[in-house]
């Protein structure tokens, strides 16, 4: 560790310079560092593919489950189950719609790390 890059062997000096460089970087790019758009979209693409199907089915399962339990409780079999089958299906479609819209499964969800242009766009929509 006698090279010029090591800062003359003084670890604290390197540490201090690293902190300074990081602070400078964060001042320029904001403290929420982002990955490059390509990398981000690739990971999110695989993530989406894995999620769409299960989001659709999960809401349907929950809807049928709620309907079934309400039927058991109120003795109205099979009407509430049929009703909640459709509500669950609608919730599933809504989940997928939100996912594809980029609002995710969340209700009223907004990305915390928008570009300024996107933010204005979202303000109108949500």
């Amino acid at each position, binding site marked *: 560790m006698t090279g010029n890059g090591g800062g003359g062997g003084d*670890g604290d000096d*390197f*540490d201090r310079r690293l902190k300074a460089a990081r602070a400078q970087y964060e001042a320029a790019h904001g*403290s*929420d*560092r*982002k*990955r490059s758009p390509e990398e*981000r979209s690739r*990971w999110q693409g*695989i*993530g989406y593919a*894995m*999620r769409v199907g*299960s*989001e659709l*089915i*999960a*809401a349907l*399962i*929950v*809807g049928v489950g*709620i309907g079934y339990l309400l039927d058991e409780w109120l003795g109205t079999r099979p009407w509430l189950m049929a009703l*909640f089958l459709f*509500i*669950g299906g*609608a*919730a*599933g479609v*809504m*989940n997928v719609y939100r996912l594809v819209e980029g609002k*995710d*499964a*969340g*209700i*009223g*969800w*907004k990305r*915390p*790390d928008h570009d300024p242009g996107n933010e204005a766009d979202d303000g109108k929509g*949500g």
Partner: protein
Amino acid sequence: MASPLEQFTIKPLVEVPGGFDYTNSSLWMTIAVVTATVFLVGGMRKRAMVPGPWQSMAESVYEFIGNMIRDNVGSEGRKFFPLIFTIFMFVLFGNALGLVPGAFTYTSHIIVTFAMALAVFVFVTLVGLAKHGLHFFSFFVPDGAPKFLYPLIIPIEIISYLSRPISLSVRLFANMVAGHTMLKVFAGFVFGLGAATFGIGALAPIAINVLLIGFEFMIAFIQAYVFTILTCLYLNDALHLH
């Protein structure tokens, strides 16, 4: 020949009365926790300014989750780092160690993944309630929807919210079961085809299994990633309503 599903059998290793048996599932959970701890503690033992390979791996996992939280939750999410990091490591090591021949994959059991997903769901809901109080329930009333549609939309939103732990757990569980079953089915073909064709026919299923193993390593990582990023997104939802 053994059934492809036999690998998912839970066997008690140490019998404890009252249903608290120490099973092969518990054994592999213990192994995962120990391995993850050794990986991180051992990697950070030297605390070198210029990290070696091991320290570099430990640091990159830390940075990966750190960046994920910053990207998806923002700086408010920092105090939840230990929870999210633990979830990631537990799922990742469960998935990856399950690929060791003869190992048991505890993430292939719906009760394990559902328990984790439910814990995340309850925790996130409590965070939302603690931060926003009763205003949290405005979560279920979409902005800009006409009032007369509320009786229809609010149940849909509630079901959509309740479906989170189901989709979170079913996705992980189904991917693990499907992958491991597929590996076993093709491994079974090796013997069947090999015996019928003097060994030549065995090459095709072996080649497929080689590809599948690589694919399974990718799935193991991606599923851990998806589970963790969804935890982040749910947390973000609870922290920043509308």
